[in-house]
């Protein structure tokens, strides 16, 4: 028997059966309970602003997991990958959560259209008024010129339009690869692999662009005067850490139900762990690139973003990120064994998911105080420059967690919806190579 190829184990349970339905139901219950509690709390204590901020963090979390996993599918097709074929169907099911994720995102996007402006302060009516005033030359003291020029892009209507475009593109691309892959289960036609490979190149370009722009729109515009061109790359790096960690956990969860027990082995977990390790470093690399240029350039409109994160209470969160999201997992995931011993990989996957969430939290939440410490009128647009940094608190709220958990439920529901039929692409030409995969 050649060791380069293996056929599917005869006892392998690769049918999803009712797994997807159960997962979807569990997800719905989690979502209903936690989001229900969050809404009640937000309503009772009038914490809607906190709710929406927490929602953006939580939404970015589930969105980024789909983004990270989708990248594996695209790359796998693009470079004719082999090892991941055994887990690709699960990855496809995860990316097919994109439509659910984007529908869930309407919770914070639609209020924007309806005139809610506490979440993104560029949506404040004063911002629009200032564009008019700036044209007549009277508003410049209050409004950084860089923001005036961005207000065309950052307007609720255009924002909503782009959001829809992103959602449609992600969904269409994910659906294309998932559908072709399922078609191959029926026909076994190797040409389907070719067509997916041909499509993966352009899809990768579109994917890169819309991932970048989604992060600009949803996360970076929280601080609309601030800008960083590497922001999208940094978000993507963090997303891939989360994506691979989540993929590992989902596959392991499926194995716990007695499915895929012969097909997925430590070799595959090892490779998932390798990607997690690589992106852990990549995240740190881009985060430091972003920081160092702004730190060195020392321009007030850039450094203010870091000033609010590196001093006062937020500095402890930043330090936690440095050691928790990078140093600790970097050192320990470096070894071959921490990635191959499954419980250890699970530990790091959960760990990195928590810190990936903290990364998003760290990106979004410092903006929370900008409006509350500002005064009415034009002052609202001076944003982060008001108040002392020492008065700027992390202000952790239980809503941050409940909304996050609720949205994880939404993600599980989205994954469960598509976890049906074969859990492995049984007629993919590269499946034999993937099953026999060995790391040197």
């Amino acid at each position: 028997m050649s060791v380069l190829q293996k056929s599917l184990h005869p006892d392998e349970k690769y049918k999803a059966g009712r797994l997807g339905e159960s997962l979807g139901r569990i997800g719905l219950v989690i979502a209903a309970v936690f989001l229900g509690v969050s809404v009640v709390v937000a309503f009772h204590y009038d914490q809607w602003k906190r709710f929406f901020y927490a929602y953006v963090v939580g939404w970015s979390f589930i969105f980024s997991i789909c983004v990270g996993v989708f990248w594996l599918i695209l790359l796998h097709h693009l470079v004719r990958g082999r090892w991941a074929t055994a887990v690709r169907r699960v990855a496809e099911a995860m990316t097919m959560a994109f439509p659910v994720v984007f529908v869930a995102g309407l919770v914070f996007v639609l209020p924007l259209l309806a005139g809610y402006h506490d979440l993104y302060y560029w949506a404040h009516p004063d911002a629009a008024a200032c564009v008019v005033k700036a044209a007549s030359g009277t508003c410049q003291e209050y409004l950084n010129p860089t923001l005036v020029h961005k207000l065309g892009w950052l307007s609720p209507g255009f924002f909503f339009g782009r959001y829809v475009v992103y959602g449609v593109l992600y969904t269409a691309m994910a659906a294309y690869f998932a559908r072709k892959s399922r078609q191959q289960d029926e026909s076994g036609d190797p040409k389907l692999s070719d067509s997916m490979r041909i499509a993966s190149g352009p899809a990768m370009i579109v994917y890169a662009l819309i991932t970048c722009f989604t992060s600009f729109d949803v996360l970076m515009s929280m601080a609309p005067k601030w800008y960083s061109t590497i922001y999208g790359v940094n978000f993507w790096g963090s997303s891939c850490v989360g994506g691979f960690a989540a993929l590992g956990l989902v596959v392991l969860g499926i194995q716990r139900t007695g499915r895929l027990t012969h097909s997925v082995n430590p070799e595959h977990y090892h490779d998932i762990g390798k990607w997690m390790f690589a992106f852990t470093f990549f995240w740190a690399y881009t985060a430091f690139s972003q920081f160092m240029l702004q730190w060195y350039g020392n321009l007030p409109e850039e450094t203010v973003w870091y000033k609010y994160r590196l001093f006062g209470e937020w500095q402890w969160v930043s330090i936690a990120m440095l050691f928790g999201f990078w140093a600790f997992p970097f050192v320990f995931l470096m070894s071959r064994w921490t990635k191959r011993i499954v419980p250890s990989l699970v530990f790091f996957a959960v760990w990195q998911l928590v810190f990936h969430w903290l990364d998003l939290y760290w990106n979004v939440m410092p903006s929370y105080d900008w409006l509350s410490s500002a005064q009415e009128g034009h002052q609202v647009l001076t944003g982060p420059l008001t108040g002392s940094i020492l008065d700027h608190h992390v202000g952790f709220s239980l809503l941050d967690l409940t909304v996050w958990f609720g949205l994880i439920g939404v993600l599980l529901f989205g994954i469960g919806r598509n976890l049906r039929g074969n859990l492995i692409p049984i007629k993919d030409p590269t499946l034999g190579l993937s099953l026999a995969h060995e790391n040197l």
Partner: protein
Amino acid sequence: MSDEPNPTPASSASDPGDTAVRREGRLYGVLAEYDTPGELIEAARKVAGAGFTRFDCFSPFPVHGIDDAMGIKRTALPVAIFIGGFTGTVGGLLLQWWCNAYNWPWNISGKPSWSIPANIPIGFETTILMAVFASFFGMWLANRLPQVWHPFFRNERFNHVTDDAFLLGIEAGDRRFDSQATAQLLRDAGAISVELVYLDPDRAKRQMPKWITAFIVASTAFALIPFAIAAKARTSHSSEPHIHIFPDMDFQPKYKSDQPMDLFGDGRANRGEITGTVARGSLNADETFYKGIEHAPEGDHWTTGFPRQLEINDALVRRGRNRFEIYCTPCHGYDGRGMGAVPTRVATTGGAWQARNLVDVSNPVAINMPNGQLFNTISNGYNTMMGYAAQIPPADRWAIVLYVRALQRSQNAALDDIPPDHRSGMQMPEAPTR
């Protein structure tokens, strides 16, 4: 050590394999060929299972699982790479600390001479460099490279090993080696051919060719010459001129400014402007526009208005503000009160120097200056202030004069000066209550 001949006689009876075997040298080992990587792995497993240790597999590409089949332990190279990388991190940071903070601290714009963020990129690079060195040279060491010659090279089949051959070779030095039994073992494992390989009787042919050794020694010595020259220069004095590698580039047959020259009466290479001539575009005859001077019968005086070329409007004020904020604010400050970034920094070092307060009504030097004199000050400087004629074109200098006038007015303005419909945003915000 591996090419030490085995005492097994080369002429042992019934050599397996073909007739092309040369018998003149001593037996080095046996080389078997297999058809597929899978068969190679199986054979390797059998050979390792039979207790052989001095054998190796050769294939055109990495064969997954072969390490396991051969019973090779995992390499310790990752540990070496980690140590190398860690050394690089620490060494890179130490190097920067020693250079920048300890041995030669140098004040650059008041920046700290030791600052971790600035040192990370170098530390990152040295980490990678040392990790790669450890990886590359550690691999050499572990595989006893460089090895330019191997006894198996004499075998014809071995030439295909980078192409399509999957070979397994056992050294005769292995204590379990027996030319017949071992060959049979390999054949039983599915070999498509088994051949004995003998050492070349000519010892010289088993060693690295002399010219390669000579080349390595010579090129190493050559590479050390620059270091030797640098080392000599550090410890000795020389009155010799510099070495000119490209003298015709260093000494070109042309004159530079202010060099002597015999051709002209004044002995200079420079040719000044001829008296009574003006270079193209440099006439600047309009004294008001270029110098701020107005001619009058009772004598020349600074102009109090603006040159007629300029249209006084909002755009010009904005242009003036823009130029002012680039060229003037470092000293005069955004409000013109003389405390820009430079005086502020002087104050932090204990000094007391301030630029001219342009808007002060109690000492209205700048307020009382006619426009022409302000223009002249910008152009040619005043006390410690240098002239900006070289940086700022005349029209922009006038725009700055205009903006300074606007600044003088706005900095001393009362609320009544503001049009009523613009007053709403100008109220001072109330102090926040704590």
